[in-house]
């Protein structure tokens, strides 16, 4: 069964929650966006499973923001893939905002107990 509009909106909102948690320092909330045995491959670190995923955020510091654009979501039934552009900004001590990095997320998602989650999220940095 093709993805519904509801599915697409839920997946977009999952991406938004990931960003709010990552930028807000909420490691538990960040891990909630993944399945229990999910694999995360960032440019700094990799993490598999909830205990490691929580640490990805706990070990991060400072104030960043993730900005997404141009999402492409494809899928069928309880499985989906997504690609979405990413820009990250950082706020300096001088109050100036800088563009820190850009890249693309390549995601694999599954619906578990009625909720969409990442099973694999990999960052492809442009730099």
């Amino acid at each position, binding site marked *: 069964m093709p993805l519904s509009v509801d599915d697409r909106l839920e997946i977009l909102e999952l991406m938004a929650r990931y960003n709010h948690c990552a930028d807000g320092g909420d490691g538990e909330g960040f891990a909630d966006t993944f399945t229990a045995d999910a694999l995360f491959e960032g440019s700094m670190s990799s993490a598999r499973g909830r205990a490691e995923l929580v640490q990805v955020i706990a070990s991060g510091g400072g104030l960043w923001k993730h900005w997404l654009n141009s999402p492409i979501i494809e899928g069928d039934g309880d499985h989906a893939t997504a690609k979405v552009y990413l820009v990250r900004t950082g*706020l300096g*001590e001088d109050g100036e905002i800088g563009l820190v990095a850009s890249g693309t997320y390549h995601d694999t998602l599954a619906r578990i107990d009625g909720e969409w989650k990442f099973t694999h999220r990999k960052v492809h940095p442009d730099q």
Partner: protein
Amino acid sequence: MPLSCDDRLDILEVAARYCRALDRGDPEGLEAVFTEDAVWESSARGQRRGRAAIVDEFRARAAQAHTRKHWTSNPVIEGDGDHASLTLDLLVLHLDDGDVRPGTSGVYEDRLRRDEAGWRIAYRKITVDGQRAGFRGVPAQPAGKDATR
């Protein structure tokens, strides 16, 4: 009743209309996105109570029209029936001197209400990054291998 897809898309469009009205210096457009009793509260500029006071605040900034672009991302919408909340990140791009650069960033925390005029903002709180409790400034690093999480 849970929010429908239509509700969610309508709410996103209200948020987009706010940005466009600000960036184009369009007070009527701004008026259309707020309820009459709306409250607007900014960590940088204080509180305005009522739609008329909110529109006056932006009329005073009309000179900024076409020099800013309000760029939003990461919407999270929750709600039920005729009430909803929206959390949305904001980046203000400054378009001065033929150049574009990131200016302020922050987060909108909104409450919206639906009546016969559709979904509108009843409360909008803007917290500018760097003015929230617990903020630790970090240098904006140059792009590098450790820069994307």
